[in-house]
């Protein structure tokens, strides 16, 4: 039997985070949803509390914890009642900044990672484009050398935190792919958003994750210095594939946590709500559904924990991560849909938090690599 991966210290961290989430975030969830905007103070406040750098070494202002501390944060954040918050924060902590720690120079770590850990700089990750999402190799955003600088032209679409980011960790083509290596010619850059030619063209309107700002960004002759290049020139594809592992894992953990919350709500509601003279949870049809939800969640949780354990030990577990991303995305939407069903008309009404969770949960099957992309990855690794 597997023992709990969480130590007494992780549980104390969980208690502290839960209190923060309940007292300081949850009261704003509804207002942020209405405004289509999470207040900016969330970043510096979470930075102050150490939550933006749990797994970052102390020399960059982090807490130096293991991956399970990150898991605790990802499990607790959905309890604020808005899927947008874990997404926005996840982009900051587990999507846009890990490549800096992994591939960056000491100067880049001090200039970007350290302030991101404090919440003084907001980070975004720029992979997707109007003409390229699933097919990362097809990106058209291009950088060409100009002396020591690079000039970037192109567009990035669906950029979370895009309206407020101070910098974007961006995937850019720097050369045509070589004939013997179709993955070559792509590089990562750290692009400051206040540079001339960097423009937020539009804020996107979305079915869910409405409190999170999602941008279309235009890059028109944006001049960045040579040291804006992150990692090795031409190795960007491999680097972003590494980045996507952390992105998918954090998404899967959040998906399980969101489903757990939905389940708890459905359980409470079906015990209270009466029909035909008894609480609806007393109907066998309802009970069995709740059992299926709980079982569904638990299966995926164990799959996700296994992938977390591998990641924590430094294993590059692409298949397992793709499997848990796929499973968690499907399960969390399935559970949200069942929870909505069990709430009846209230579930469909804006007065209950269920519909928001249902809309938010839908994203996971598309974002961070769609279900189909995960299946493609798994089938390749199965040798199909």
């Amino acid at each position, binding site marked *: 039997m597997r023992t709990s991966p969480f130590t*007494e*210290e992780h549980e104390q961290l969980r208690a502290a985070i839960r209190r923060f989430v309940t007292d300081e975030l949850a009261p704003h969830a509804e207002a942020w949803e209405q405004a289509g905007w999470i207040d900016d103070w969330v970043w510096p406040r979470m930075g102050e509390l*150490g939550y933006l750098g749990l797994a970052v070494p102390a020399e960059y202002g982090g*807490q130096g914890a293991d991956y399970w501390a990150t898991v605790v944060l990802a499990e607790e954040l959905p309890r604020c009642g808005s899927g947008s918050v874990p997404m926005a924060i996840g982009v900051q902590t587990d999507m846009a900044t890990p490549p800096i720690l992994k591939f960056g120079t000491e100067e880049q770590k001090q200039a970007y990672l350290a302030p991101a850990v404090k919440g003084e700089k907001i980070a975004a990750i720029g992979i997707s484009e109007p003409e390229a999402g699933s097919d990362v190799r097809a990106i058209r955003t291009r950088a060409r050398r100009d002396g020591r600088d690079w000039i970037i032209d192109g567009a990035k679409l669906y950029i979370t935190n895009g309206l407020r980011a101070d910098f974007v960790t961006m995937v850019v083509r720097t050369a045509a792919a070589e004939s013997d290596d179709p993955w070559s010619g792509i590089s990562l850059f750290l692009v400051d958003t206040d540079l001339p030619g960097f423009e937020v063209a539009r804020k996107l309107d979305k079915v869910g994750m409405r409190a999170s700002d999602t941008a279309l960004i235009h890059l028109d002759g944006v001049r960045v210095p040579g040291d804006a290049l992150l990692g090795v020139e031409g190795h960007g594809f491999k680097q972003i594939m590494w980045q996507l592992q952390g992105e998918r894992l954090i998404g899967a953990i959040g998906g399980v946590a969101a489903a757990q919350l939905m389940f708890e709500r459905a359980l409470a509601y079906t015990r209270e709500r009466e029909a035909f003279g008894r609480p609806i949870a007393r109907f066998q049809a309802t009970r069995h559904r709740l059992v299926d939800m709980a079982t569904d969640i638990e299966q995926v949780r164990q799959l996700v924990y296994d992938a977390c354990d591998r990641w924590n030990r430094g294993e590059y577990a692409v298949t397992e991560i793709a499997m848990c991303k796929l499973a968690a995305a499907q399960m969390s939407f399935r559970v949200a849909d069942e929870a909505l069903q069990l709430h009846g008309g209230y579930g469909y009404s804006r007065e209950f938090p269920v519909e928001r969770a249902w809309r938010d949960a839908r994203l996971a099957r598309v974002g961070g690599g769609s279900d189909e992309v995960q299946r493609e990855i798994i089938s390749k690794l199965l040798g199909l």
Partner: protein
Amino acid sequence: MKVIVPVKRVPDTAGDKPIDPNDRTVDRDSVESVLCPVNEFSIEEGVRLKEKHGAEVTVLLVGPDSAQPIVRKALSYGLDAAVQVSDEGIAGSDALGTARVIAKALESMEWDLVVFGNQSADARTCLVPAAVAELLGVPSLTFARYLEVDGDKAIAHREHEEGWDVVEAPLPAVVSVVEAINDPRYPSFKGIMAAKSKPLTVKSLADIGVDPASVGAGGAAATMYAFEPRPPKAAGTVVEDDGSGAAAEQLADWMTEKKFV
């Protein structure tokens, strides 16, 4: 400067606190234990004294070995060390007995200031801080909603119903704080991890020179003769608003009758 922050383990404030009919104390085995909530405020004052004056802050806990997670929790906020007084003879102590143990423990330590919470979440007597000061023969500044150390004196704002008094006392002194005093921070993960390796000294009654007859159930000055569960809450009055304004009038009458206005 050396500061001591005494902390208490209490039954979870969110739950019921069942009384064990045999010894008429709270049945601690049946409920989850937590760090007394008011201690988050006294600990925060300790952390602030550390930040402002470089104070060395020690946690003091009177309680059995099973209370050690509470000591670690207190340390996780960033305090330096802990002393725990653990002895079977302490079980069943009343406020005075507890104060005797704490006072003796304090006599065995070096300090300039002791920062208590004003009352524990379970017993709520508010007696211990003043009793400790009395037993030690040092001044006490209780119910502080503001605390400052200036050279060799402590200045506090003592809260009461009409506002607060500015009071001061030379060090060494005992202070008790109310929740209005600060906005406690959450422990950081670094603090949580560091708490494991901070020094914890466990002492017995004999170590600190307490006569076992003066504490515990046998040494108690107060005796509990009987207890009853809290009566169930009576149903409230519901005022229905029919849009005519009558409800507002009814509400105003009710508030006048109850002398709320």
